[in-house]
């Protein structure tokens, strides 16, 4: 999908614009780090780096040796997760920042076997267990934080 999308955080200090290719299907992650960060359910969708414009204050937390989690320092809204390898990495953005995301279908779940009992997602979307995901992504150091 390549329409222009605009979203903002809870307090409005941060605006994110996407102008170009992005995937309007959120993926869910149930790993322990994503649970702790969000309080329960982590959802994100992908947008290529060159399509994303960010305005406003942003704080970034390096949650592992290879990725950062960004948030608004004024209201705490989660903004994105992104690889730390510089400016070429795409953004895994929080769909809740964008009004358009209300109608987006769920693309996938990873760490599906680690989901909390209070988070059960319905449908025939792609699912991967912790073991399946970590076998495909050997750089993941573990999620026991």
């Amino acid at each position, binding site marked *: 999908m390549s329409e222009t999308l605009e979203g903002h955080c*809870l307090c409005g200090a941060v605006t994110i614009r996407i102008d170009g290719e992005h995937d309007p299907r959120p993926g869910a992650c149930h790993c322990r780090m994503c649970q702790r*960060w969000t309080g329960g359910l982590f959802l994100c969708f992908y947008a290529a780096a060159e399509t994303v414009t960010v305005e406003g204050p*942003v704080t*970034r*937390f390096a949650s592992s040796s290879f990725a950062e989690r960004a948030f608004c320092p004024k209201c*705490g809204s989660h903004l994105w997760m992104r690889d730390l390898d510089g400016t070429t990495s795409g953004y895994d953005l929080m769909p809740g920042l964008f009004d358009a995301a209300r109608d987006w*279908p*769920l693309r996938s779940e990873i760490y599906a076997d680690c989901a909390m009992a209070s988070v059960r997602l319905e449908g025939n979307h792609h699912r991967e267990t912790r073991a399946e995901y970590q076998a495909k992504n050997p750089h993941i150091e573990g999620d026991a934080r």
Partner: protein
Amino acid sequence: MTIYDTNWAEAEAARRAWMAERAVCSACDATLYWRMRGRKPRSIAVALLDDPSGLKVTEEIFVDYRPGWLPPFEDATQSTEAKEMEKLRKFQAGETQ
């Protein structure tokens, strides 16, 4: 993109102006709790617990924003945005504690 430090004085002023607050860890932004002003936190992020297995979902709110792939819990009460806004109006008018 610019990286700023949190302006805590500004954040505190904003907090005082609002009816409710959301608390996060200032270092990593982990979600901690939500509470109405002047009340103790009663909405604490489940994922903070090492073992949430004893918990049960008893209440769901703003269900009119529920996506199709997030099914309701059978035994949980279901409340819409309109119902929640009415509760907020009563709280603001001092009709509920």
